[in-house]
């Protein structure tokens, strides 16, 4: 391997690691602040410049957390499988870091000839293949801890992630159908100039399904059953402390960025946005801004919605999202054929019809799945 190639590889990969690790620290602070404000609290506001009382809105909190995590004792329970207990957080981090390379980020210092972190024309399919490993890591952590709460969390995680993987992939399939390519850069290129897929009814439905499934895949609230604090302590990472816990935490957030990045690529036009013709490097900014917008919505949802029950979670995946995403594939197929006719009028008709079909199907499924809600009955009173 030549020296220049090594430099090229470093130039392509190191910024990714640096940007997302920094952004991770900032996001934890942002999330705590936002959640606090939603709950009428102040949030972290004390940790600023050391040895003074300058708070800086608590911006020192991520650093303090990091220092604490590194110096904390690494506790492994008696009877735990030490090797897998160690491997699980690493295995959780690697896939989420790896898939960052597929995001079509056009850094200004990368030119035509430089090595891209990954140039793979099957990026989308590879993304799902790699993120699937996350389930294994979570279950490994639950199994290796030799703790009933951890095992329960691991089992919940497996059930949840496998169920929600299907609507996730099926909604991504629609975009692949429309573009005819699995290459992330090509998918983003197809949506140049405001032609984002989210503006079509089938694209919007797919985006919503994708976003909900992404919440479940990354164990975010309201689908945070694997780590439900009030039910099973912290689920699969009950027995983790110190830096291993920090790795899990990091992996979870990086996975959030990665899956938001994929959602941006598939539905929100990648790096597309105003001002690109004048300043091409703005595309990176747009891309990161869109990721951040999605993350903000995730935080907002976390502050709003209560956790689902296990049966509601499974029912939602199999009885609502799966039929809807399969129907959406058919709708998108018809839309694709209508597009071949190349007529403005037919396009508009398709737009309206597909919107009506999808909304009707969604509310029909909603009505079918509606549980009976009764007021609470008292057994002994009255």
């Amino acid at each position, binding site marked *: 391997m030549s020296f220049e190639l090594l430099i090229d590889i470093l130039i392509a990969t190191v910024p990714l690691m640096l940007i997302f690790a920094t952004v991770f620290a900032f996001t934890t602070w942002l999330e705590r602040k936002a959640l606090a404000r*939603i709950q009428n609290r102040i949030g972290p506001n004390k940790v600023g410049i050391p040895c003074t009382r300058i708070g800086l809105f608590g911006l020192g909190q991520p650093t303090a957390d990091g220092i604490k995590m590194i110096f904390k004792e690494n506790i492994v329970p008696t009877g735990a499988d030490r090797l897998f207990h160690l491997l699980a957080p690493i295995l959780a981090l690697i896939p989420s870091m790896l898939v960052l390379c597929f995001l079509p980020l056009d850094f200004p210092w990368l030119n035509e000839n430089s090595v891209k972190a990954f140039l793979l024309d099957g990026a989308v399919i590879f993304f799902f293949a790699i993120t699937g490993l996350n389930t294994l890591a979570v279950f490994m952590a639950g199994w290796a801890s030799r703790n009933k709460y951890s095992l329960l969390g691991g089992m919940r995680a497996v059930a949840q992630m496998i169920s929600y993987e299907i609507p996730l992939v099926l909604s991504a399939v629609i975009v692949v159908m429309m573009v005819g390519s699995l290459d992330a850069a090509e998918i983003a290129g197809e949506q140049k100039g405001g032609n984002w897929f989210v503006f079509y009814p089938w694209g919007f439905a797919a985006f919503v399904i994708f976003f909900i499934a992404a919440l479940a895949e990354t164990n975010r609230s309201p689908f945070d059953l694997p780590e439900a604090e009030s039910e099973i302590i912290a689920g699969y990472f009950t027995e983790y402390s110190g830096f291993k816990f920090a790795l899990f935490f990091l992996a979870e957030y990086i996975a959030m960025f990665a899956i938001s990045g994929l959602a941006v690529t598939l539905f929100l036009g990648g790096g597309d946005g105003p001002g690109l013709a004048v300043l091409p490097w703005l595309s990176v900014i747009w891309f990161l801004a869109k990721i951040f917008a999605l993350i903000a919505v995730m935080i907002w949802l976390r502050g709003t919605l209560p956790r689902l029950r296990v049966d509601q979670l499974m029912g939602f995946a199999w009885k609502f999202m799966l039929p809807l995403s399969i129907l959406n594939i058919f709708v998108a197929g018809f839309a694709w054929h209508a597009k071949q006719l190349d007529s403005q009028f037919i396009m508009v008709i398709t737009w309206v019809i597909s919107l009506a079909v999808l909304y009707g199907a969604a509310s029909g499924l909603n009505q079918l799945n509606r549980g009976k809600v009764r007021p609470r009955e008292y057994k002994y009173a009255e």
Partner: protein
Amino acid sequence: MSILGGGIFKGMAVTLRNFLGSYTNKKERLPTIDYSWRADGALPQGIGDYPKEKGEQLSDTTTVTEYSRNFPMLLHDGGEPMDTVRCVACQICERECPPQCIYIEKDYDENGKYIKRPAVFDIDVSVCMSCQICVEVCPFDAIVMNSQFELSTPDRFGGLLMRRDDLLKSNDYYHKIHPEEAAARDAKIAAEKAAKEAKKKAAAEKARAAAEKKATEAAKEDAK
């Protein structure tokens, strides 16, 4: 017909209002009190921000809004608590309590006759989930929620068990912490009492009328 997923948007609007309001309308949307003012000369540096001077309670009416509910209390109508206590030890709340944290024993006088008040009324703080179901089911308006939240104790066995005498609070105290709710409850009790009395009066009236009628009929019979 409501919009699909409309409930989620409604909830998100509420949280957004809280989020933005905490910056603009601090009085209403950010009731958290920052105790760092204590450190500005009042206390030596390094002392924490939740200082407790001896006997100081944060959970009084000045720091807690009137909508705060934390833990049940037993109401009495003033005077000697056990003479005016509203609870009759019917044990409905004990049986209805989801985590079963209430324990009640009835009170008996020396002849073994049941007097309508509890001899023992314990609630376990560590088990109570503040669901307020006991308040909803109580037919006597005897148990309501208190806003006191500083219940921590160094004794994790006895200290976390609230005894009857700890739980007894006067109706005046209830009016002080939850004025709106207490007024509504008093009005409800008064209305119920009035309705009951009216019914009683009507029944008495009816009985008297019937008796009179009977008497006149009997008199007629006699006259014949």
